[in-house]
């Protein structure tokens, strides 16, 4: 394969490290930009430079935006007394895309892991306890992954919040939308059966 010049090659290598891209797709993307320098590449490079300057973690919830306080935390209409706890910003964005939740969020930034030396103090759990008092919250929804690590962290947070008297709930586990029973794994079917509800 013919090799592009040094700087371009370095750009391709940087792009190839992005999630979802590999060496081939990075090469295609860079070539596309090179062909449309004015239309695509310059606006993109300016946007990248700007966002690299302005992006910051929200001081309250841990979401990433270009303000010190993210738009969700700044929006008074979202002070519903309900707080949704997620592992990562990507989970927050997924919940926002789904659009069903009107309250505010709290991003932990990971899960408890003794093996990786990630303790409660590395996870913004103390900040969560502070927010319960400061924001007069009534309900905390734990939207954590259904993995051993996620469930351990959920259990830990539930224990930690017990003395505050706030009501703690977790996302339901079971049948996905449009899901067919026949194709589900046994564990999911059992969870769906246990979490059945009256119609």
């Amino acid at each position, binding site marked *: 394969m013919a090799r592009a010049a040094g700087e371009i090659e370095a750009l391709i290598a940087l792009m190839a490290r992005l999630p979802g891209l590999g060496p081939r797709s990075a090469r295609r993307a860079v070539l596309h930009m090179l062909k449309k320098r004015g239309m695509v590449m310059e606006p993109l490079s300016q946007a990248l430079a700007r966002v690299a300057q302005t992006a910051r973690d929200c001081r309250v919830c841990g979401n990433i935006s270009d303000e010190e306080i993210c738009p969700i935390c700044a929006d008074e209409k979202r002070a519903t007394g309900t707080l949704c706890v997620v592992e990562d910003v990507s989970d927050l964005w997924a919940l926002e895309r789904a659009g069903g939740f009107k309250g505010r969020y709290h991003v932990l930034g990971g899960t408890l892991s*003794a093996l990786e030396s990630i*303790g409660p103090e590395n996870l913004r759990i103390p900040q969560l306890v502070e927010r319960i008092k400061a924001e007069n919250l009534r309900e905390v929804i734990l939207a954590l992954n259904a993995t051993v690590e996620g*469930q*351990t962290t959920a259990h*830990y947070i539930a*224990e930690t919040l017990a003395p505050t008297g706030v009501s703690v709930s977790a996302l339901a586990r079971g049948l996905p939308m449009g899901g067919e029973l026949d194709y589900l794994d046994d*564990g999911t079917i059992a969870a769906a059966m246990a979490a059945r509800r009256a119609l």
Partner: protein
Amino acid sequence: MSLRLHRLTLSRFRSHPRVEAVFDGRPVVLHGANGAGKTNLLEAISLLSPGRGLRRAASEELGAQPADLGWKIEGEIARNGTLHELETGAAPGQSRVVRIDGKTSPQSGLGRLMPMLWLTPAMDRLWIEAAEGRRRFLDRLVLGFEPDHAEAAVGYEKAMRQRNKLLRDNVTDPRWYTALEARMAETGGVMTLNRQATLARLATAQSADSPFPQPELILADDTPADLAEALAESRGRDRQAGRTLVGPHRADLSALWAARGRPAAQCSTGEQKALLISTVLAHARALQAMVGHAPILLLDEVAAHLDDARRAALYDALCDLGAQAFLTGTGPELFTPLGNRAQTFRVSETAGDSQVTEEDLP
């Protein structure tokens, strides 16, 4: 209802540069000199079940030496009339992957499609060596009946490793322990129930008129009914030990030669082996009663340890069960009583490369 490995293809697996064998469902005899590559073939088949196979080898040991070109095992199975393609292997420098019918799949999927059990010469001392080997054997027996057992065991192991790290790091936060102990109690409870159910199934599948001694299998498990509470109480002791001292990971399997009332560990070497074979046959009978087919059996050098009467009885039992058993031995004469009831292959080796050739019996 039946289960058989119909076709096996190996590429650069240990001493086998390339093998393509077709099995017709009869027991399979593999004979050849020491070091010819018989056990390597059994190991390849064992890797089509969850876990690290019958040698518990790491993925990077499995390729043909010295060049690291990767390795691959493909098996075509016929289960209750449906064909499935199983594949496992590793590209150079990458970790092992499993594909079922062309789709990447977790290893537990293999156990659902093809229950499997093996006996190797290393297990001859199973009844007298450390409990770990017996626990592993027990869990493999369980896996045949309860394919979800592997997931419970992995979940338990994960939570326990986290808890052991907390103990060693002298972390005292009680909520962190409680959270992990809740996971351990949940998954550990499933493990214990599965193990008890399996031993109950085996007990009903014993055959009184078999020439093999019938074992009474006992789960030696002092895990308290409320494991979460027991773990909470044990934190101080556990911290001093640096590990978790109660739970199903400490369980043991013990066996008694029922007719003589003698513990397996006090039986002769031959009787210990016979108790193991007897357990494997009971498992095959119980699985057949439950799902309609026996598991795949890998019996490495089993024939050599048995007298003529028991050898013939083993062969008859395998044929009666319709079990696809893979038997290895150094010479074809060990398998004479099987005659045409088995399919026979000769395994040989030249310059480090193994060959597998099917033989027609006269």
